[in-house]
Structure formats: structure tokens, C-alpha cells
């Protein structure tokens, strides 16, 4: 079975631009979470979506938004990019409601803002 897929793998943008990152969860998983990982730090929670509904939001500005589609794939949008948005953006696939719930991460999208 395919794991979590993310696209693109790498991206270079300039300040003020907008970016869209994409994620496809593991087959059968209905929930995804997005995390930002700055170099040398642990991942920071941005959003969680389940069945197209937002289930949680981290401490990120309104420039960050996301959505989930009927096929459970998801997009993360970041507007008005800042230099500090340069990071590895991770998508995690989750099967909620199960006692032994685990978040499985994709390979990430490396975003560089110049």
C-alpha cells in the first residue's frame, strides 16, 4: 500500500507570494494533519481535518489555511509568504476513532522563501 504522498517535494518562492501544498493520505484514512518543521526544531501543529471539517488549529496566523476534499486529500495554502515561512511542511495521515491511533507522516515539502 502506498504511504502518505506530498507534492511538490521542493519549492522556492519569494516574499509576498502564495503557495499551495498537497497531501494524499493512506488509503482508508479519513483525517490529515499539517505540521511545520523549522530546521533544528520539532514539528509544530498547524491544522487537522476530518471528513472535510476542521478539527483543530494551531497557533499560526490567518495567512495559513487548509481544506480537505471528498477523497480525503488535502491542501495547505499560505498567503503573503514571509522569510520565516521557510520550513519543511509535513502532512500526517490519521485513522481517528481507533484506540491505537497513530499519525503517519509523509516525506514533506521543503519550502524556501527568498
Amino acid at each position: 500500500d502506498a504511504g502518505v504522498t506530498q507534492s511538490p517535494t521542493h519549492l522556492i518562492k519569494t516574499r509576498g507570494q502564495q503557495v499551495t501544498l498537497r497531501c494524499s493520505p493512506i488509503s482508508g484514512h479519513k483525517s490529515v494533519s499539517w505540521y511545520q518543521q523549522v530546521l533544528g526544531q520539532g514539528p509544530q501543529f498547524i491544522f487537522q481535518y476530518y471528513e472535510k471539517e476542521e478539527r483543530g488549529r494551531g497557533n499560526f496566523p490567518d495567512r495559513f489555511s487548509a481544506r480537505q476534499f471528498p477523497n480525503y486529500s488535502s491542501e495547505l495554502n499560505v498567503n503573503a509568504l514571509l522569510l520565516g515561512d521557510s520550513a519543511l511542511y509535513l502532512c500526517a495521515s490519521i485513522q481517528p476513532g481507533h484506540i491505537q491511533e497513530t499519525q503517519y507522516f509523509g516525506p514533506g515539502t521543503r519550502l524556501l522563501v527568498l
Partner: protein
Amino acid sequence: EDQVTQSPEALRLQEGESSSLNCSYTVSGLRGLFWYRQDPGKGPEFLFTLYSAGEEKEKERLKATLTKKESFLHITAPKPEDSATYLCAVRAFGNEKLTFGTGTRLTIIP
């Protein structure tokens, strides 16, 4: 607010030299404590989930344990391929997010 502190920040071991990584946490009702391995430039790879104090889990050369305040990841007779950053995370009841520590960067020298 949930907090996770990992120590040491970095650890260099000779091949075969066993050691332990520490994860101290504070959380309002622990739903689960998670260990991940992360190679440079890649996404975290799931290793273990622990749910209650006293629980232990093993996988190859790794063994994770849990108390009410901390978790240990014991590595026995490590090999160079065990070199990676090891991340610890917690999830609280009623909260959807994982709260991560900053990780321990482990280097195994042949």
C-alpha cells in the same frame, strides 16, 4: 500547555555502545506518547506509541518505556544505520495535535 523536553540534544556513540534517550513531558491527561525517527530532509517515521505508565515496547535494537513524567528510548548495541534524530511527542485527551520535543540527534560511529 503541553510540553515535551528531550535530552540530550545530541549523542555520539561507538557502534555497540548502548545508551538511553530521555523525553520528559507535562500534559493535561496523556492520551498517548509517540516516538518517531527522522532522517535528514525526510518525514518522521513512526516507531512506538505508549499509553500508560509501566508500558514497554520493543523493536529490534530499540525499547521504549513510560512513566508518569517521562519516557526513555533505550538503544542496545546500536549500528551506524541507527543514526538519526529521534523525536518524542505527546497527545492529550480532547486535543487533536501532537506536541513534539526538539529531538535527540544520535550518531553511531563505526
